[in-house]
């Protein structure tokens, strides 16, 4: 029973990261219809920016996190402008290929600048808490709490503020939004900035727990896509629920069946769901 609770806790922790990253991806993929396959790599870049802000410039954990969010929001705007905007009216697959170009640049860039070896961010909250027989490090608990706060804030931003509703308007009808005087280019930049900024926050929160390496983005990017499709394209609740589900599948599958094959469960789940419903669990028909 203790083991079970421990796995659940780990699953929720993993799921928190997945949920935030998938949330950012669903904004650009589901709403702007850009298959930002480099999303995981931007997440990786976020972890690296924090790491070097902390080790080289001796900043604390929280200032580093904010710098990372800011830098990555800028990076997101640049990537959208250079990589995706010229391909806006072309088939998805062209953007997808362009994204592969972007992710190669990002991954190699990090290797060239900071080296291929893995690093660990010093853990700011190493203490542990015992609860119901589970051992939780404070950092993991903090990650779960911060994830929830971020999800709630994003939800408020999208539903209650003017820029947020503008994003939704563009998602529903691009031409209509333009006629209403919404600057679609600016909305695209804004959405990208939010998407990559939140990814950077998630990456920084999780970095003290796992190692950071240039290759960490690839698998996470794929998983984020799985979650977005699992939850239904463009569906924000879908991305959140999907993120936690995937985290739990991995933690339980890895803990009880086989740790070697834990990633297979995630990918297998997607294949299974697409086999049953080609547009995802909560997905609408895609054009």
């Amino acid at each position, binding site marked *: 029973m203790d083991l079970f609770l421990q796995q659940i806790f780990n699953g929720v922790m993993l799921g928190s990261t997945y949920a935030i990253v998938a949330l950012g991806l669903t904004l650009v993929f589901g709403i702007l219809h850009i298959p930002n396959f480099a999303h995981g790599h931007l997440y990786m870049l976020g972890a690296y920016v924090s790491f070097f802000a902390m080790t080289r410039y001796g900043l604390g954990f929280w200032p580093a996190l904010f710098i990372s969010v800011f830098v990555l929001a800028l990076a997101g705007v640049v990537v959208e402008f250079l990589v995706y905007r010229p391909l806006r009216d072309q*088939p998805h697959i062209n953007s997808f290929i362009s994204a592969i*170009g972007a992710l190669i640049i990002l991954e*190699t860039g990090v290797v060239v600048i900071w080296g291929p070896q893995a690093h660990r961010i010093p853990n700011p909250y190493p203490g542990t808490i015992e609860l119901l027989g589970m051992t939780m490090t404070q950092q993991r608990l903090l990650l779960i709490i911060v994830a929830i706060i971020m999800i709630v804030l994003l939800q408020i931003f999208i539903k209650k503020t003017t820029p947020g509703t503008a994003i939704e308007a563009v998602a529903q009808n691009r031409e209509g939004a333009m006629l209403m005087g919404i600057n679609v280019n600016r909305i695209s930049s804004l959405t990208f900035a939010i998407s990559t900024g939140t990814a950077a926050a998630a990456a920084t929160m999780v970095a003290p727990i796992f190692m950071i390496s240039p290759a960490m983005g690839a698998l996470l990017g794929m998983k984020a896509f799985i979650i977005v499709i699992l939850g239904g394209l463009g569906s924000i609740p879908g991305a959140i629920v999907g993120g936690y589900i995937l985290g739990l599948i991995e933690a339980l599958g890895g803990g009880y069946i086989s740790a070697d094959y834990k990633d297979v469960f995630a*990918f297998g789940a997607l294949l299974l769901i*697409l086999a049953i419903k080609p547009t995802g669990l909560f997905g609408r028909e895609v054009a």
Partner: protein
Amino acid sequence: MAVKFLREKWFYLVLLLAAVTLPLVVTDRYIFQLAIMSLIFSIATLSLNLILGYTGQASLAHAGFFGIGAYGVGLMTKAGLSFWLALPLASFISALVGFLIGLPTLRTRGSYFAIATLCFGVIISIVIGNWVELTGGHTGLLGIPRPKIGSFEFSSQISQYYLVLAFLLLTLFVMHRLVHSLQGLSFMSVRNNEPLAEAVGINTFATKIISFMVANFFAGMAGGIYASLIGSISPSTASFNHTFNWLVYLLLGGAATLAGPILGAFAFPLLMEYLQFLEDYRLIIFGVLLIIVIIYFPRGLMGGIESLQHRIKTRYRLRKGDGKNVVTASGKSHQAV
């Protein structure tokens, strides 16, 4: 007739001549080995071209099928089976797996299909890495026997070169017949407009399945040849980095052409070789190139050559006073695949 054939196919004849005489020109063993790899990857890229270029379905599991073929041939020949039997068998297994995977994934479209197949590709490489009893895990399979005819073993570089060249020509022949057949037209109609193709009575799902199976058959074949010529394979043989490489070859060379994939598979590694002095920065150039090509030259090198040819032809015709309206090549849909 012969003149017409020459005029239309001169490009291919020149390529063939260059390919046959290459061993006489290239003496550097290292460069020659690169050429052999390029031939093998040409087969893989050509098969990717069938599903992506002609049928418009971005299968990113291609290296997975390459891996299935490679491990199929590796395991079977190590168990004592002849290469000539193991290769078609492994290719069939690859096509069969393609059929089984195609059933769920080909119902999805666009990016969904790309992601679903990518997932499958990742599953294959994870399974290969962890199924130690069968595949040897991360150490891989070593000491795979070379192909033999009678007592002749394909152990010298030149013999291997001509062996792969023969397989490439076979692939090219099949692809050529296929895309110029009625079936090939169905592939392209699915790519250009799937609902329309369905409306005129094409079974689009069956068409996609056929294309996917044939593509995976040849991907498996390329993998099988790779395994027995290199002699050792590991899970990285099936890694999606291979798929990405072939994707670059394909787009750079020109998707939906037959010469493009081969051109890409030769030109790109050669370019990378000459940029060796840039070390790690090479890959950055690789990425930048990919983005520039997809934005500005979505039809690749061959597409560029084609539209140039066309422009010259149109100008020539206009000068002759043949003022008929000519539909320009650039009027074709402005997309890579």
